[in-house]
C-alpha cells in the first residue's frame, strides 16, 4: 500500500478525480459524455507526443524537438499532397509525414547516438533548426484550404450518436492513432527484447553496452520512432484543425514533457509507464480545457500547470531526499 501511495500514478489519479469532483459540483454540465469526447479529441495529439517523449525519457535521454518535427512533417506533407494533386489520398499524407518525421528523428540520432552529445541541448538545437528550415525554405503561409482527404479524415468517426439529452457525441477516427501508439509502444516496451534493451539502457548505458546491447542502434530506433510518431501526430493535428499552420505545435513540447514527468517518468532514465503518461496527459488536458468550468480564468493555466509540475516532481524528490538523509 505504501508503495502504491508513493507512486506518481496514484498521486496524479487522485488529483484528476479531485479535479473532476470539484468541477462537477461547481458546474454540473461537466459531467456529460460530450465533455469526455471533447477531452479525448483534445488529447489525441498531445497524447501521441507524450508517448513519444516518454519513450525517450525511459531510454535515458530527453527530446524537445518533436513538436518541430511534427510541424515540419505536417506542413511539408500537406504541401506535397497539394502539389502532387493527390489531395484525396490521406494515406499519402501519413506516409510522407512519417517518412519526413523518421528522417528528422534520425538526424537527432546522429548527434545523440553517433556523436554522443547531450540530448537536451542537441534537441533544443534541432528544434530551432528544423523550425527555421521549415519557415525559410518550405513556407510560412497558412494553408487554410487543406486537402479534401484530410477534411474527410477529420469528419470520419468510429462512433457517432446522440445523448438522451440531445447533444451530439462523436469519437473521431483519429483516436485510433492514439490507441495505436499506446498499444504499439506498450508492446515494444514490455514484450520485446528491443524494448527491454531500451529500458535497460536507460537504467545503465555502460552495463547495456557490456551485455552486448548495441546502444547506438537503440538510440537510432528511439529517436527515429519518435520522429515517425511526431510526423503522424502532425497530420492528425492539421486534419482536426482543418488548417496546416507551420507556426503550430512548437511551444507545446515543455507541456508534453511536464505531462510525462507528472506521470512518473524520470529524467535520469529507466523509469516510465504508459499508464502514468496517459494520466499525466489527462491532467494537463483537463487543466487546459476545463479550468474555466471551475470558475478559474484560462489565464491561470500556466500557473496551475507550473504548480503541478513542482508538486508532482517535488513530492518524490523530497521523499527520496528524506530517505537518503535518514540512511546517510
Amino acid at each position: 500500500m505504501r508503495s502504491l501511495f508513493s507512486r506518481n500514478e496514484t498521486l496524479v489519479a487522485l488529483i484528476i478525480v479531485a479535479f473532476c469532483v470539484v468541477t462537477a459540483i461547481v458546474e454540473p454540465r461537466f459531467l456529460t459524455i460530450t465533455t469526455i469526447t471533447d477531452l479525448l479529441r483534445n488529447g489525441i495529439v498531445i497524447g501521441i507526443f507524450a508517448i513519444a517523449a516518454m519513450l525517450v525519457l525511459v531510454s535515458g535521454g530527453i527530446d524537445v524537438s518533436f513538436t518541430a518535427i511534427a510541424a515540419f512533417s505536417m506542413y511539408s506533407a500537406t504541401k506535397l499532397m497539394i502539389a502532387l494533386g493527390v489531395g484525396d489520398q490521406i494515406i499519402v499524407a501519413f506516409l510522407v509525414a512519417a517518412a519526413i518525421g523518421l528522417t528528422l528523428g534520425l538526424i537527432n540520432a546522429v548527434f545523440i547516438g553517433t556523436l554522443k552529445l547531450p540530448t537536451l541541448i542537441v534537441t533544443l538545437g534541432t528544434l530551432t533548426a528544423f523550425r527555421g528550415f521549415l519557415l525559410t525554405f518550405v513556407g510560412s503561409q497558412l494553408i487554410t484550404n487543406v486537402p479534401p482527404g484530410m477534411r474527410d479524415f477529420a469528419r470520419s468517426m468510429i462512433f457517432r450518436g446522440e445523448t438522451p439529452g440531445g447533444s451530439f457525441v462523436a469519437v473521431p477516427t483519429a483516436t485510433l492513432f492514439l490507441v495505436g501508439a499506446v498499444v504499439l509502444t506498450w508492446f515494444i516496451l514490455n514484450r520485446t527484447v528491443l524494448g527491454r534493451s531500451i529500458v535497460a539502457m536507460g537504467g545503465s548505458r555502460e552495463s547495456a553496452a557490456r551485455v552486448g546491447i548495441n546502444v547506438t542502434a537503440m538510440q537510432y530506433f528511439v529517436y527515429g520512432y519518435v520522429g515517425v510518431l511526431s510526423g503522424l501526430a502532425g497530420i492528425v493535428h492539421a486534419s482536426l484543425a482543418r488548417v496546416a499552420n507551420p507556426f503550430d505545435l512548437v511551444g507545446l513540447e515543455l507541456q508534453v514533457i511536464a505531462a510525462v514527468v507528472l506521470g512518473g517518468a524520470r529524467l535520469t532514465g529507466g523509469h516510465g509507464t504508459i499508464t502514468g503518461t496517459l494520466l499525466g496527459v489527462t491532467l494537463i488536458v483537463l487543466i487546459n480545457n476545463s479550468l474555466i468550468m471551475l470558475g478559474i480564468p484560462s489565464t491561470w493555466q500556466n500557473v496551475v500547470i507550473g504548480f503541478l509540475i513542482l508538486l508532482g516532481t517535488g513530492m518524490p524528490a523530497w521523499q527520496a531526499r528524506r530517505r537518503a538523509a535518514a540512511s546517510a
Partner: protein
Amino acid sequence: MQTPNPSTTADPTASRLASPFRGDPTMARLLAITIAIFVVMSLLKPGLFFTWGNFSSMAFQFPEFAILSLAMMIAMLTGGIDLSVIGLANLSAILAAFVLTAFGPDLAAGGSAFGVIALAVATALAIGAIGGLVNGLIIAVIGIPPILATLGTGLIFTGIAVVLTEGQAVLGFPAAFSVIGNGSIYGIPVPLVIFAVLAVAVAFLLNRTAFGLKLYLMGTNALASRFAGVDNTGLTVRAYLLSGTLASIAGVVLMSRANSAKADYGTSYLLLSILIAVLGGINPYGGFGKVGGLVLAVLSLQFLSSGFNMLQFSNFAKEFIWGALLLLVMVVNGLQFGRTRPRAAAREGGNP
C-alpha cells in the same frame, strides 16, 4: 578548458607534454571565430557593417540577451540550467512597469522621475531575487532536478505575468526611463555599460571569490564538495538567486528598450542564451566556463545577426542558422564535453 584527460591519453605524462601551452584552446578558437565573422561581414557589407552607426546599433541590441546569458551561465556552472530566466525577466519588468505607471502621473505634478525609476528598478531586482531564491530553494532543498524545477517556476512566473496583465502590454512610462535602454553616456550606449559592469562583476565573482571557486568545484562534483565541507545548499541557492537577479536586470533593459512590458517578450532568447553559453565554452555538465568565452560568443552572434540583417536574411533563416550553429559548436566542442562528463569517464580513466 585546460583539461587534458588521461581517460583518452592513457598516460598522465602524455597530457603533461601537451599542456606547456598554457593558453586555452577553446578561447583561442572562439576569438578566431569572432574575428573571422567580423572580417567577413565587414568585407561583405563594408558600407553598412563597418560603420559607427552599425556598431552603435549593435551595442544597443545585444546587452539584453547577453545579460540573460550571464544568468544562464551561472545556472549551468552549477551543473543545472535555468529555464525560468525569460519568465522571471518579464515578470520583474511587468511589476516595475506597474510601479512606473502607478507613480507616473505624479511626475506631471512635479514628482521626482529619478525616485520613481529607482523604485521601479528596485522592485524588478527584488522580484528577480525572490524568484531566483525560490528556484534555488526548490532545487537545493527539495531536490527537484533544475530542468524540471525551472520549467515549473518558469510557467508560474510567466503565468503570473499573464494573470496580472491579462496578456496585454503595459505602457506609459516616464520619458526618463528610456535612458536605461536607449541612452548614451559619453557616446557609449547605457545598456552596453550595464552589461560591461555586470560581466566584469560576474567574472570577478567567479574567479576571485570563495563563492565563485566553490561554484566551479560543486559544479564538477557535488558529492565531493559536500565532503570537502562546502555548503552545497547555500551555494546553490545563492547561484540561482544571482541568476534570477541578473534575469530581472535583463528584464528592465528589455522593457526600457521596448518602452513597454509584456508577458511574452523575448521568448526566443531562451534558446539564444543557451546557445551563447554553449558556444562560449560553458560545459553543460557544470564546473567549467568563463565569462570571457561568453562575451566572445555574444559578440560573434551579434555580428552574425547584424550581418544577416544586412544580407536580408529573414528571421526564420536566422533561427535556422542559430540552431545549426548550436549543433555545429557542440560537435566541435563535443569531445571536450564528453571527456569532462562526470563519473563514467572518470571511473574508466582511473585504470586504463
